[in-house]
């Protein structure tokens, strides 16, 4: 049933598939984000309590949701890299970590900028904010460990272990607003299709969310290709590929 996956254990096959997919992710991201952001900034009605600061929702929530799901994905890939010694998995963990860190930084920063007009403060050490900050450090730790070793395989192993251990932080972030009394508001979008908001506010959110999904897919694919080239630099297929490029 899963046999069609087997050829993609070959770095060359995977590289060419990624090369084909990457531009499409880029186009989709551009279209969806242009539509979503215009919708969010110009046409969504202001929130009855939070006014226009509510427009930050459309970048804060997608980036925060994705910072968690990207972390889980990265940890699963790191686990399979350690258990089955998949070199491609190591490369994708290295490609994902910086993108996840960017998402987390955006979630934290936009959260602070939304907190100032809403709560009257940029930052409080409450459960949600603190656990999200820890996640940023976990991402940065994974990036640092990848670069801390002369040998790529060793760096990947150390970074993979940190990524797996750090996954305990994900449920803490997700449920922090329920487990503890936080200043952060509860979840608005608990289930896909069952939001605690009206459709004219929810639909642009869905567009923005998918825009972010394709944006990070594009970035991850681009970085993944670079990692594959670096890790397979001595292979004949890379030689052929490099000879085709100009300069």
């Amino acid at each position, binding site marked *: 049933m899963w046999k069609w996956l087997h050829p993609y254990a070959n770095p060359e096959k995977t590289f060419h598939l990624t090369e084909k997919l990457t531009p499409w992710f880029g186009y989709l991201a551009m279209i969806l984000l242009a539509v979503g*952001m215009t919708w969010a*900034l*110009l*046409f*969504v*009605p*202001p929130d009855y309590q939070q*006014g*226009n*600061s509510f*427009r*930050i929702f459309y*970048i*804060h929530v997608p*980036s925060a949701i994705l910072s968690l799901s990207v972390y889980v994905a990265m940890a699963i890939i790191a686990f399979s890299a350690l258990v089955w010694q998949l070199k491609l998995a190591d490369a994708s963990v290295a490609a994902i970590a*910086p*993108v996840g860190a*960017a998402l987390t*930084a*955006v979630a934290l*920063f*936009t959260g602070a*900028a*939304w907190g*100032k*007009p809403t709560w009257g403060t940029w930052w409080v050490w409450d459960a949600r904010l603190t656990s999200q900050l820890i996640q940023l450090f976990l991402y940065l730790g994974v990036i640092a460990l990848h670069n801390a070793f002369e040998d790529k395989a060793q760096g990947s192993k150390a970074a993979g272990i940190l990524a797996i251990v750090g996954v305990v932080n994900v449920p803490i972030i997700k449920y922090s607003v329920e487990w503890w009394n936080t200043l952060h508001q509860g979840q608005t979008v608990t289930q896909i299709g069952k939001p605690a908001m009206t459709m004219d506010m929810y639909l642009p959110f869905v567009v923005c969310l998918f825009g972010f999904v394709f*944006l990070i897919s594009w*970035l991850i694919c*681009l*970085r993944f*290709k*670079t990692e594959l*080239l*670096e890790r397979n*630099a001595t292979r004949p297929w*890379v*030689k052929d590929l*490099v*000879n085709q*490029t100009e*300069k």
Partner: protein
Amino acid sequence: MQFSNFAEFIAMDGHGFYVWLSYGFTFAIFVILALFSNARHHATLAHIKRRYNREKKLKQAALEQNQGKR
């Protein structure tokens, strides 16, 4: 359309600073990441290519030296 003119759109009832700060930061972060990732990809390609050319030259030189000896 929620705003009647451009100035109102920028001001956002006093929340403009926070909204534009958030959108600006997000835009900047992803543009920087995209530019760096793209630059690194091309640098990697160029680096590998340089290494191949060097190896090719070394091989060629070794070959010529061997022929010279004979």
